[in-house]
Every structure is written in structure tokens, then in C-alpha cells.
């Protein structure tokens, strides 16, 4: 079965410290992987995407993610958290593209402590 798992429902970090949001997937195929961010009462914004090119992907607002096939992981990182990063983050997988919809993880709520 194909699935995506976000390992933490909540992550709390202090402003200026690193952020790590974890994501693992299960698939028989090589998936396309995305991270989306949702700020309170807002829509979904694409942070970054992996589509079988470089395994280290850089996104907007200083976020990065590394695709590790051996670990079936696609963890999201940022060296230094900012208060404006507080939001819900979704790891998202496209297993076949096109007609099939995206599969979302349950989300990780990122809290930034001042």
C-alpha cells in the first residue's frame, strides 16, 4: 500500500534554532514528493518539490528537504526558525501523477517560541 507518514503532529522550536519536520513514505514506485505550508485561515502554498532530479531540494523561505531513497524519507529542514514560519506543514506525495490526486500526510503543526 502507498502512504505518507509525518512522524510528529506538533514540533516546537525557539526562534533562531533549526527546524526538522519528518516525513516517510511507502511506495512501490519512485514518487514525486512535495512539502506544502498552510498558514492559519489560508490556502496551501508549495514550499518545495522533488521530482527525481537533485536529491537535496531548496524551497522558498530558506527551507530545504533531502530525498533519501534508502530510508524512504523526505525530511524538511531550515537552519534558523523565524516567527513567521509558524504554520501547518504537509508532506505530500504523488505516486503516479496526472489523474490520481495527491496523498497528504496528516500535517505537522510548527510552533515557534520567542
Amino acid at each position: 500500500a502507498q502512504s505518507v507518514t509525518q512522524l510528529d503532529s506538533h514540533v516546537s522550536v525557539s526562534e533562531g534554532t533549526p527546524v526538522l519536520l519528518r516525513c516517510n513514505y511507502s511506495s512501490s514506485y519512485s514518487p514525486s514528493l512535495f512539502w506544502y505550508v498552510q498558514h492559519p485561515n489560508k490556502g496551501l502554498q508549495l514550499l518545495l518539490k522533488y521530482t527525481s532530479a537533485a536529491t537535496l531540494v531548496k524551497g522558498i523561505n530558506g527551507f530545504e528537504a533531502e530525498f533519501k531513497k534508502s530510508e524512504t524519507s523526505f525530511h524538511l529542514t531550515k537552519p534558523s526558525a523565524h516567527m513567521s514560519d509558524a504554520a501547518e506543514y504537509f508532506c505530500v506525495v504523488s505516486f503516479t501523477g496526472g489523474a490520481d490526486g495527491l496523498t497528504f500526510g496528516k500535517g505537522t503543526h510548527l510552533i515557534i517560541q520567542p
Partner: protein
Amino acid sequence: EPEVTQTPSHQVTQMGQEVILRCVPISNHLYFYWYRQILGQKVEFLVSFYNNEISEKSEIFDDQFSVERPDGSNFTLKIRSTKLEDSAMYFCATLAPTGNYEQYFGPGTRLTVT
């Protein structure tokens, strides 16, 4: 930058009533999607639409739901007889024709069924 738009931003309806949620896709995108996010839960795929017909649908997309592109511009989701559990945020998305499976999301319509 082109974007997906959705109207209304918020819809309140009584149980048993019909609602139509509207989306204007990005003009050169060919696949369209509807997703649902119940408050506090993950985003769930409902249906994909290509070449004026449904391509795929999830088990959530039962007979009370329908989609159409009535005028070559709008893409609509109709819920025939709303239930309390239909209360959710509904997102429209379109697929970029770039081959990397990136979907662009609209801002969402918050549906409240009373």
C-alpha cells in the same frame, strides 16, 4: 503569476440544501481536482477531472457529489443534499503541464452546514 481562484470564500447552508462551489483554473492547465479538509484533519482527495470528464474519484466522492465545467472557464463542485459532516474546507487545484506533477491550489471555500 497566474493563480487558481475560488468562490465563495465562505458558504453557510442548511442541512439538506444543495451547494455549488466554484473554481476558476489556471488557463493552460488540463487536470483539475477537488480536495476536502475537515477541520483539524488532513487534506483528502475527492476527484480529478480531465477533458470534461471524471478521471479518478475517491471513496468519499459518492452520489451526492458531482463536478462539471459548464462554460469552459469555471470548474464546479456540487453537493446535492448537504449533511453536517460535509462541513469542511474545499480546495480546488490544477496540474501544471510541466511533467513534474505540481498542483496549484486555490485559497479554498469554507463550507459550514448547520
